[in-house]
């Protein structure tokens, strides 16, 4: 159902998360100064030569990188280097900032998301986002999760909606904790529970990509570990792009890592390689704690 809606509004082929489409015949490496391979064989999202300006100030400089199916891509870098800015380009949340301007090409399964014909509402249903600070709506737990399915008409009746809510809460690993208090306000949960509620709310619309901006920075180590586990499980069904300040977290959850520095994408690579054997001097300095 969702897929049909997407297909109509985004003019995209049916969702193919489980069976990735055949890879393009040949992958052209974009012209960038980034160290390492920015492309992947089967990208769900591609970005090419993206610049972002806030007014006159450039926050992202010529960034090109792909996101693969069923991978966790982590973005690290010192504060203010533009990680959040870049992440917000991927579902056009930057549209809400008056002064922000984005140039370059960003595609979701081959469709330019900044194209005039793209419906931003549908884009955001396919590329969901989890924020740094848990932001449940001041509604009940149930209503929080049902919110997305309701506005997208994903359920024909109450029992289907119940089904979606339950599945999403289960996937977010929250069901057992809240199943008896679905009617209570989501804002009354603990911080870690709230963040998992936000993740449940996000996966309830069945997106293809989930963007997470420092999702654990407001949480204690146990809640963090819980969410990291969750991210690993979610990878079965979704592509995840996560911004994090914790290098251990990046090492634990991600398959590929991108290092940003002052708006530049310095280096991209397999997480294991980047952490053990960084190619660029800047990356190495950051990872060894000589910077940041």
């Amino acid at each position, binding site marked *: 159902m969702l897929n049909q809606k997407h297909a109509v509004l985004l003019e995209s082929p049916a969702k193919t998360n489980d069976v990735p489409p055949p890879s393009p015949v040949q992958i052209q490496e974009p012209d960038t100064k980034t160290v390492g391979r920015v492309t992947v064989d089967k990208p769900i999202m591609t970005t090419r030569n993206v610049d972002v300006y806030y007014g006159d100030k450039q926050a992202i400089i010529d960034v090109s990188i792909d996101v693969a199916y069923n991978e966790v891509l982590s973005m690290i870098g010192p504060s203010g280097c533009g990680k959040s800015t870049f992440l917000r380009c991927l579902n056009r949340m930057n549209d*809400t900032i008056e002064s922000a301007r984005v140039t370059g090409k960003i595609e979701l399964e081959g469709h330019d998301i900044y194209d005039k014909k793209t419906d931003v509402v549908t884009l955001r*249903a396919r590329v*969901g986002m989890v924020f740094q600070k848990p*932001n449940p*709506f*001041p509604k009940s737990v149930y209503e929080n999760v049902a*919110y997305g399915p309701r506005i*997208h008409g994903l359920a024909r009746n109450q029992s289907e909606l119940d089904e979606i809510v339950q599945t999403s809460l289960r996937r977010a690993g929250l069901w057992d904790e809240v199943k008896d208090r679905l009617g209570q306000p989501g804002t009354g949960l603990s911080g870690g529970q709230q963040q998992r509620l936000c993740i449940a709310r996000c996966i309830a619309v069945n997106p293809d990509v989930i963007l997470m901006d420092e999702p654990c920075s407001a949480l204690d180590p146990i809640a963090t570990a819980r969410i990291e586990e969750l991210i690993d499980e979610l990878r079965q069904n979704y592509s995840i792009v996560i911004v994090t300040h914790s290098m251990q977290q990046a090492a634990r959850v991600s398959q590929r890592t991108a290092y940003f520095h002052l708006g530049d994408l310095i280096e991209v690579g397999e997480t294991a390689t980047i952490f053990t054997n960084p190619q660029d001097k800047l990356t190495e300095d950051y990872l060894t704690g000589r910077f940041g």
Partner: protein
Amino acid sequence: MSTPLLLAVLLLLTAAAFEFGRRRALHLAGPEFRTLHSLPRYYGSFTALWCALPALVLLGTWLAFEDEIITSLVVADLPATYQSLSEPELNLIINDLRNQLSGNVVSQELSPDMQAAAEHYGSLRATSKAAMAVIFLSVAMLGMGLAWRKIAPNFWARNRVEAIIKVLLIICSTLAIFTTIGIVLSVLFESIRFFQAVPVFDFLFGLEWSPQTAIREDQVGSSGAFGAVPLFAGTLLISFIAMLVAAPIGLTSAIYLSEYSHPRFRATAKPLLEILAGIPTVVYGFFAALTVAPLLRNVGTYFGLDVSSESALAAGLVMGIMIIPFVSSISDDVINAVPQSLRDGSLALGSTQSEMIRKVVLPAALPGIVGGLLLAISRAIGETMIVVMAAGLAAKLTVNPLEAVTTVTVQIVTLLVGDQEFDSPKTLAAFALGLMLFLVTLALNVIALYVVRKYREQYE
């Protein structure tokens, strides 16, 4: 010395006390000035406060009781014939004495007895003044000296000063509360007098209002009917019409301004809207009476309706326009207070802007908006000028907005501008109406505050 002069001297003394205190603290601490418990200026403030406050309290008390005491002393010294005079006559004499002293015209030639009394009065006054000046300045010096002696490096001057300041703040805020209580009590007592003449039940549930009472015993006049129901009905009708205008317009403009408009448009439109709140209500009143009411009547005649030239509708419409800024301004603030993170959360799920507003922003802001509406209603209920000019004086019990009605506030005005005795039921009725109005708006405000506070608790 005159009082202003005393105050000026006290000011100088206080300034000096501040400096003395500060110096003494520094001096006592010597090179170890870091061992002082508080910053030097706290020692200064402590000394200054002790210099000024007791002296000021003394001055206040003295001035409050001086006159009474002197007068009673003078009266006690008057010859026996005067002692037996009645209170008003005695007052007259005292007045003469005062006038004589200040060189004003006196009501009769003063007898030698009286001359002596006047002199006595004058000398007492002079003594009192001199004594006051001396005691006042001694108290100031004494306070300063005591404080000065207390100063030591380990003296907690900061805590003392903070405590004194806290007490001053408490006094100021209770002053406001006591004023309110005083007003309420005075209205209450007058109302009780009214209810001795007119039963409470008749007042609250009576359906007829015609407060004309006979002025003289022999007059044939009605004994007056004091049923407040038509007045409250009129008030409610007009307020209701006003809210019908103000709530939707105010709310939608708030939504547009806070969610859709360009910041630059908002920066100009919002102040413009708030100018509406700055227009004097009389101006609204004649706008209602001279423009809106005739317009309504013409339109009404066109459709074959009988619209009276003063109508609840005209008053309500204009009053609605008047309170738009209240609604829009408060709603706008409340809507803006909804955290951006909630909006982001909704948009990131793929909601449209209007879905976000309807399903997240407005529900989150609703309690605050309701609070704003209630405040606007209490404003509408208390409004007088527009209604006087546009809705008329006829206390008719009707729900037809095309007829003339009257409101509580309008009746209070008309009751009090009459030439009735002040303790006739007619005038006292004004207090009873005022009390009722006060209770109604108080209840509305309490509900509004409660709702608004509840809303505050929702985040964090």
